[in-house]
């Protein structure tokens, strides 16, 4: 069973797919609600204190905005732990969304820089692409150690 980092980390669908095919998803697993009532699109955990941006200094320097560092304090440890990763580009908000473009750039870079298997996919725009999308994820997960045959 491999630990698989997911981008967007808030995607429940991705998280579910990874778990179904026998691996451990590393994701924030927070639901993006149909109606947005909280501060940001990801409905973040609000136990974050000013200490988190300081912890984020491990992944981003002090001149990087505090919001990026605060986010990295959550996602940075997941990337460190990851043995594989799936990145979905240009995903729809309802699929899973990360609020800050600068953090997203950094996350994707750190994942790609790490020496682990990475699946880079475009978000599907129709049913046919959707079927191929799920199949590609399954094929990738099967190649990982401990994946379902």
């Amino acid at each position, binding site marked *: 069973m491999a630990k698989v980092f997911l981008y967007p980390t808030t995607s429940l669908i991705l998280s579910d797919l990874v778990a179904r095919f026998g691996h451990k998803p590393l994701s924030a697993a927070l639901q*993006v609600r*149909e*109606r*947005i*009532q*909280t*501060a*940001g*699109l990801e409905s*973040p955990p*609000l136990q*974050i*204190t*000013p*200490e*988190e*941006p*300081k912890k984020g200094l491990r992944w981003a320097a002090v*001149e*990087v*905005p*505090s*919001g*990026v*560092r*605060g*986010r990295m304090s*959550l996602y940075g440890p997941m990337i460190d732990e990851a043995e594989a990763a799936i990145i979905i580009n240009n995903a729809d*908000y*309802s699929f899973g*969304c*990360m*609020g*800050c*473009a*600068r953090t*997203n750039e950094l996350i994707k870079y750190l994942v790609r820089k790490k020496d682990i298997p990475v699946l880079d996919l475009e978000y599907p725009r129709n049913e046919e692409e959707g079927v191929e999308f799920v199949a590609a994820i399954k094929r990738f997960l099967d190649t990982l150690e401990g994946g379902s045959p």
Partner: protein
Amino acid sequence: MSRVRIAQLSCGPEYSGVQKEIDEAAAAVDAEIFFPDLKLADIRHSFDEFGLDVRSPDLKLAIARAKALVEGRVEADAVFIATCFRCAEAAIVRNELRRYIHENSRLPVVSYSFTERTTAGTLLTRMEALTTIARRRALLAREVQQGLTMGVDSGSSTTKAVVMRDNEIIGTGWLPTTAVLQSADDAVAQALSAAGVTREDLEAIGTTGYGRFLVGDHLKADLVQEELTVNSKGAVFLADTQRGPSTVIDIGGMDNKAISVQDGIPGTFTMGGICAGASGRFLEMTSKRLGVDITELGPLAMKGLSQKVPMNSYCIVFGTQSLVNALAAGSSPEDVAAAACHSVAEQVFEQQLQEVDIKDPVIMVGGTSLIQGLVRAMEDLLQTEIVVPHHSQYIGAVGSALLASGFIKGE
């Protein structure tokens, strides 16, 4: 009005750990922060329509929320825009949203760029100004001072008191702030003595400035109000520009205010100062180093040429160092004084005036407006003539005395 509802448009405060601070600052002035409720479909639609192609989804959400407020799909009394300090993309959105809301609605709006060190205390005056504009529009519309009232401005550097009767200033008091209450008592005594009246004669008292709560309590003031709205009111009253647009610039001892005013009521404003190098405090230090009184610094600077001295006092320590180096290299005190004025004006121009829409007349107020060299430097940068009204150093006290007359019994 019951609780003031402030709509928050933001990116990053929750991840910076400062959302609690924002909520606390709002609660301290009996206001509540809320996030305009939208559908995901609204975000796509509003964002495309607005036309600013940003990448961050939370900024897209902020844009969609701003549109919902302007179009009246969500009701609010005021708007607070907050994004991370140092994020260029967010800075563009922050500025454009503030302008968009200001131009297309009557909602008071303030913007702020935070770090993880931002505290509720830092945000308090801004939140208070937002709620004052929302709650006291009728009071802020007052254009004439009536009866016998007094205003006290307990500032970080100086304490000022003004006594007014029937729209005229009849007594003033001014002294450096040391012990807050003692300074206030002394300034009040000076003003009362100059006016030839006693405390008992006064029909209403108003306080403003950093020490407003403490002094207000001490003097049993009828009105205790932050300096953003009070100074705007005082400025347009003294400059006799109560109707129409104007811009108020107040370079203070501890922070600077730039306020875009419409009919005497602030629309957008910025308050801050990254460093003491961009404040009146730096000019005070310059005059000490040059061995002249602060009142002589202005005339001295008028005789000098700022271009002759390299100086950028982004930080008060390095600014002073440039000043010492320039004098040691043989620069004249006149040129150094002019360079110090230019440096302060340039920083206020670069850091704050970009965030408000400058509309004529531009009114400079506060003690620093008496330093002619600073006013000239600002005129050069803005390419416009600046109005410095009479009694401009008493601006907060005048605004307080004017607004306090709304509290005279029977009013």
